[in-house]
Structures are given as structure tokens and as C-alpha cells.
């Protein structure tokens, strides 16, 4: 894991492929010897693939209002009495096929989760690199901001950003802005951990000879950071990112469930559960429970993968 900067340029491709081969075999070994991890990977892959291919495999288009009929609403799953073979998992209050809404909903949940994790990662890595490399008052400013933010739960910060956006956009808040507000809100509430980790490793890396050499030949500090330091500090970030992906999906689902996230016209899994909660007491459990199971399976699988990745990359922690 301790990849040094490629100083002699000619050797670079060979070094990298050898490193990749060692890394691959190590990780492949621990992967193939953990049944739980393989199961988790399969579950995650199935859900993610199904969600991304939703327009192709969903039997109905839940966004196409013309295909919906209120006569078909509140149908139980196909195997129960009163079920309709066209709607495998039943229909919701608007006559939407629950299976299709789950596919489309997972797509929203996963996309927002990925975007938010990516955003938080980029922001945290950039701030961590700058704080670690620049030091001094800039470092102090960034890290104190991180300290203050980390005293509050992420969900509260995300809610606050969402509430602010409501006040700022007012009536112009449409579905597209909501998507990006969610990405922004969740991303901004998760950057601290990346920044702390990256800052820590940057402090170590910046005193190494290759950074000194790069500085001596007059390479621009920005280029040193992103071309040379970044590749050497990015390892632990992957682990944080996997675990944060699960957290981001949970946060999005929670916000949507609380009615602060995606609207019911473009639902995520959280919105679907919120819609279904109203009908739980009427015995129509399928509207909330099936999206709930999907969400739980997705988060559990991603968490297990994150745990495995942490153990595989840091054998010492085992």
C-alpha cells in the first residue's frame, strides 16, 4: 500500500502494473475467502444493476401518468387474494406498480448517494490536502471548521441546508433543484472525515524526499499536491467512501422520509416508505415494507463491503 511516488519516469508503467497485480491478488484472496462478502457483493450488484437499468426492466413507467389507473390502486401483491398478475408486488395509492417504483426509487437513492459521496470526497480531500500542505492559519481555520461541524450530527446539517434552500428558492424549487440540493446538503455534511484523514497522511507525505525534490525543481505547489501527494494519500479514503456511501443513502432516505427530500412524483426509496407509512394501518403493508426491505438490503450490503475493504486494505486492524 505504501506506494512511493514514481521518481524515474521510465519505470512507471511496469511498477504500476506490478503493484496492481499484488494488490489485486491480495484483495482477491480475501474476497474469495469470505462468503459473507461475496453475498454482499452480489446483493449490492443486483440492486445497483436493476436500479440503473430501471427504464429497461421495469414493467411499468411510474412517471408516465397516462399508464396509471386509479382503478388499479391499492392492489396487494400478486400472490395474495385480490392480487393482479401484472403487479408483482402490488400497487400504491396512485396505482403505480410497487416493483417499478422500487426500481426507479433505488435509482434516485443510489445516484444521490454516489453524487453526495463523490462531492463530499472531493471537497474533503481538497481541503485536507490544502490544510496539511499549507499548514499555519489556513490549516487551523479548516480544521477548526471541521471540529465545529463534527460536533453536530450530519443529518441535522443536511436538514438545515435543505431548509435554507427552501427559503432561498421558494416556489421555484422544482424536482431538478431538489435532486442537487440533496446532493449538496448530504455532501456538505460528510466532508470532515475525509479532510481529517487526508490531512493526517499529507502531513506525513509532505516531508518525504520526493515532495522535496518536486519542490526543488520548481513544480507548482498545486501540481505537487494533485500529481504527487494525492495518489499516496488516497488509499484510506476509499474505505471511508464506501462506508459513507451507506450513510449517504441512509441520510437521503431519512430526509425524504421526513418530507424534506424528493417529492412523491420522483420518489426515492425514502419517499416511497413515507407514502406507504400512511397505509400501514389499513393493512396495506406492501407499499412501505418492500421499499424498506430494498433499502435495508442495499445499505447492509454496502456496509459489509465497506467492512471487508477496510480489513483487506489494513490487515493490522483485523
Amino acid at each position: 500500500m505504501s506506494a512511493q511516488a514514481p521518481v524515474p519516469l521510465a519505470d512507471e508503467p511496469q511498477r504500476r502494473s506490478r503493484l496492481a497485480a499484488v494488490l489485486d491478488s491480495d484483495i482477491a484472496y480475501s474476497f474469495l475467502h469470505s462468503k459473507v462478502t461475496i453475498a454482499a457483493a452480489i446483493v449490492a450488484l443486483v440492486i445497483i444493476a436493476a436500479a440503473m437499468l430501471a427504464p429497461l426492466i421495469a414493467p411499468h413507467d411510474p412517471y408516465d401518468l397516462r399508464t396509471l389507473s386509479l382503478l388499479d390502486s391499492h392492489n396487494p401483491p400478486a400472490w395474495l387474494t385480490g392480487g393482479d398478475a401484472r403487479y408483482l408486488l402490488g400497487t400504491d395509492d396512485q396505482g403505480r406498480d410497487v416493483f417499478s417504483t422500487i426500481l426507479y426509487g433505488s435509482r434516485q437513492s443510489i445516484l444521490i448517494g454516489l453524487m453526495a459521496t463523490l462531492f463530499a470526497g472531493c471537497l474533503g480531500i481538497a481541503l485536507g490536502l490544502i490544510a496539511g500542505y499549507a499548514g499555519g492559519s489556513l490549516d487551523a481555520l479548516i480544521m477548526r471548521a471541521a471540529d465545529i461541524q463534527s460536533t453536530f450530527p450530519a443529518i441535522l446539517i443536511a436538514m438545515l441546508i435543505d431548509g435554507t434552500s427552501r427559503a432561498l428558492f421558494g416556489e421555484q424549487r422544482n424536482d431538478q433543484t431538489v435532486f442537487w440540493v440533496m446532493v449538496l446538503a448530504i455532501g456538505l455534511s460528510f466532508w470532515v472525515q475525509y479532510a481529517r484523514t487526508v490531512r493526517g497522511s499529507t502531513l506525513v507525505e509532505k516531508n518525504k524526499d520526493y515532495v522535496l525534490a518536486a519542490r526543488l525543481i520548481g513544480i507548482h505547489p498545486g501540481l505537487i499536491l494533485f500529481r504527487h501527494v494525492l495518489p499516496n494519500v488516497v488509499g484510506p479514503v476509499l474505505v471511508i467512501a464506501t462506508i459513507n456511501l451507506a450513510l449517504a443513502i441512509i441520510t437521503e432516505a431519512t430526509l425524504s422520509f421526513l418530507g424534506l427530500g424528493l417529492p412523491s412524483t420522483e420518489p426515492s426509496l425514502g419517499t416511497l416508505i413515507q407514502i406507504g407509512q400512511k397505509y400501514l394501518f389499513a393493512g396495506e403493508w406492501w407499499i412501505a415494507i418492500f421499499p424498506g426491505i430494498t433499502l435495508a438490503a442495499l445499505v447492509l450490503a454496502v456496509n459489509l463491503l465497506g467492512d471487508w475493504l477496510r480489513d483487506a486494505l489494513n490487515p493490522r486492524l483485523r
Partner: protein
Amino acid sequence: MLAFIIRRLLQAIVVMLTVALIAFTLFRFVGDPVNQMVGIETSAEERAQLRQDLGLNDPVVFQFVRFIGNAARLNFGSSYQFKTPVIDLIADRLPATLELAFVSALFSLLVGIPMGVYTALHQRSILSNVFLAASLIGISLPTFLIGILLIFLFPVTLHILPSFGRGDVVHIGFWSTGLLTASGLKALVLPAVTLGLFQMTLIMRLVRGEMLEVLRTDYIKFARARGLSDRAVNFGHALKNTLVPVMTIAGLQLGSIIAFALITESVFQWPGMGLLFLRAVQNVDIPIMSAYLLLVALIFVIINLTVDLLYAVVDPRIRIDARTA
């Protein structure tokens, strides 16, 4: 030690001021306070008069200082939705949230610690593996989903325990408690379990980890060599030393329990502060939002400060670090 306390106090004040600045910025610049307070038929002159009366024409720095002064006297203005002072609304709902938080914290400790001890002492038993697998699921399930599953299981399917509200409450002075009535206690069960489950799994894993560490140490081996009974070793020596870090984390978690209560309050329509804040975010009721923000920040700062100071009392290394730093 005194220097350490002063440093931590100063840090706490900086945190509070930063949060106050955010709350003030929200209040002052997000949306127009005057527009929120008056109706459509209010004339321009009346608006200007109100603007002058509220001091919105003063320099921003003055306004901020005044905002802090008001906040220190618990004056957060009036809610845009209810037209009543925010502090009354919060005082009305604070007991519900605090009772819920304390009961679920108690639940997570009383269940989590024994489970952690058991899984550490009987590492290979089937029950331990069941506990560990359950704890993984407990960490992966979002709070609101646990709440919905519990509602589906108990009130809907088995027709026991209420699914929403607080039941009957008894008023003792300004405090309203649901702990003294049967319906209040029944109503508390599901929300408290929902809120406490995540902390419970966290505490269980923590106790297990710490206990395994402690059991490996020399003084435990020595105690066993002396021929002390298993019970004396496990509970008299090992558990006692496990509990210091556990108490720290549990204390820190109390803050997040209060913050996370808002999800549980939403699922169970529990009339607490969180539900108030949630409605405020949905309706852009900024005075409530900023007051809640300040209040939660204050709770967090107080808890962090207490834990830090207690830790410094317990662990002399921190005092020395603080002196040299």
C-alpha cells in the same frame, strides 16, 4: 488543570458564537423577516415602520450583538407560523423530547452492556453470533425503518401498544411527564426502543471490544492466577475497567440521541422539539429553526465539555498533554 478548563471553555464559546452567527445569518438574510410577519394588505409605510422597530436598519454588527443578547435572555422572537414566542413553544415540547431521550439512553445502556459482556465472555457461543449479526443489522437499518417495522409488528399486526402520541401526561409545574400514567408509559415503549436500538448496538460492540482488550491484560491473568473466582475477575476487575470509555461514548451519544429524536418523533408523532423543528423546516419558520439550532448546539457543547472535563479528571495524561500543548 485550570488552564485546561479555561481553554476548553474558550473553545466552547467560539463554537457557540459560530453557531449563533449561522443562526443569525439564517434569520436575517434568508427570506425577509418583515414579509414573513405581515399580511399582504400591510402598506409600505407600516412595513417600513416595522422594519425600523425591529432594528433591521441598524448596522449588521449591532444586529448580531443584539441577536446574541436576546438569545442569552432566551428571547428568540415569535414563530412565523404560530405567532407565539418561540421559547414558549420549545419549553412546551422540551419535556417530551428529554424524557424520550433519557429513557432510550437508559434502555440502550441496560440492554447493550449485558449483551456486550456476554458476547465478550462467550465468544464462540451461538447466542453471541446471533447478537453480533443482529447488531450489524441494527447499524444498517435507518431509524425510521426500525420504527415503521415496529409499528407494523406491534400496533398493526398484534394490536398491542399505541403507535403515535404520548398518551396521558401529568403536569408538574412547567414539566409535563408521561412517566406517571399507564398510557404514557405504554406510548413510550416503541419510540424509546426505536431511538435506543442504534445506540444499543453501538454500546454492545464497544463493550465487547473493550472487554476483549481488558481480558488480555496482565492484571486479569494475574487475578486468575491468584485463584479469584470467574465472577470476581470478569465483573469486579474487567467490567469495571471497561466502563470508563463506555461512559464517555455513552455521554457523547446522549447529544445525538436528542438530535436523532426528531426522526423517531416524526415516525411516532411524538410531540417533542424535533417534530417542532421539522415542521419549522418544512414551513420555513426561521425563528424556530435558529432557536432549535442554538439549543442543540448548547446541549452538545455542554455534553462535550462535561465529558472532556470528566475525562481529564479520570485520565491524568490528558491534563499533562494540555499543559505542554
